[in-house]
């Protein structure tokens, strides 16, 4: 039956791009929702080490962050040795006590036992500094800690 005409000439019709904005908007919304604005401006290099036996930190509001690492390129006037950063400024080991106390004071009392300290330490830092931090945390009785790492194998990286 001659009713169905074959598409002659083999010319493809142009693909409609009318739905392109919709797709792009969809992606846009995904990234807008997934974006977490950084809480702290890092003044140190913070290249986390890799490990694969990780557990997730679930309650974000119950985490205190302690950063440590070499001062980054803009802050070389603070020296080349690894330093601690609390909130937005460089700190000494002895400031950790006050920091923990302040963090605890800002939380509801019944939540204080669940507070975890996340140590975000640059992989090139040495353990002396971390030992000092840990000792200070023990003094403050903040015993739950988490070494924040990137997920990946520990082997074959430098």
């Amino acid at each position: 039956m001659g009713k169905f005409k074959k598409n002659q000439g083999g010319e493809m019709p142009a693909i409609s791009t009318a739905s392109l904005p919709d797709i792009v908007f969809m992606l846009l919304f995904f990234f807008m929702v997934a974006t977490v604005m950084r809480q702290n401006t890092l003044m140190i290099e913070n290249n986390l080490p890799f490990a694969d036996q990780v557990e997730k930190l679930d309650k974000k509001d119950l985490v205190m962050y302690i950063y440590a690492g070499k001062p980054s390129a803009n802050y070389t006037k603070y020296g080349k040795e690894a330093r601690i950063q609390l909130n937005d400024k460089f700190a000494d080991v002895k400031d950790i006590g006050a920091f923990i106390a302040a963090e605890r004071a800002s939380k509801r009392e019944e939540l204080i036992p669940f507070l975890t300290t996340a140590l975000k330490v640059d992989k090139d830092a040495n353990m002396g500094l971390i030992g000092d931090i840990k000792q200070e945390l023990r003094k403050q009785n903040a015993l739950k800690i988490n070494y924040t790492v990137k997920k990946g194998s520990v082997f074959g990286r430098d």
Partner: protein
Amino acid sequence: MAKRAAPEVNAGSMADIAFLLLIFFLVTTTIETDSGINRKLPPIEESQEDVIIKQKNIFTVLLNGKDQLLVEDNLMELKDLRKAAIEFLDNGGDGTCTFCKGKKDPSSSDNPDKAIISLKNERETSYKQYIAVQNELVAAYNVLRDIRAEALYGKPFTEMEKNLNDVNWPGNKEKLKEQLEKIKVEYPQKLSEVQ
């Protein structure tokens, strides 16, 4: 002039605008790492009680300033550490551990409950190496717990733990918690750090 219908706005450039925004968010997004190795620090205790632990129940791991590993007084590569730790923990030397599959070597640990891993590092040790060692030791415990959980409940320990934290998991959480506790008692994580 005759009144005309308002002309339709050309929406062709909407995609461009959306792309621009998309690229902005793509660039600014830092997916925050929020996972890591959980540890518990020992509390500072005033009374220093000396607990006598048999030397064979301690698995000493020494990490020196040049990131070299000394395990039980022998130099060791990082890749062999996991296996050595598993062998030590699963030894079951005194025969009280019914589920251990180790060699029952009398000169190694008595049972997983008594076996202690002692980790010592120096100030010059790099953080990266320290985390790698911690990771391997935690992995040793996880491997053993996985085997045990597989034998008891037909599911690896790590998967059960994941299920416990998963809000969408449909099973009985109370029971799961109990099962996890049981395995944690059988293979307790006794990892001590020397200051």
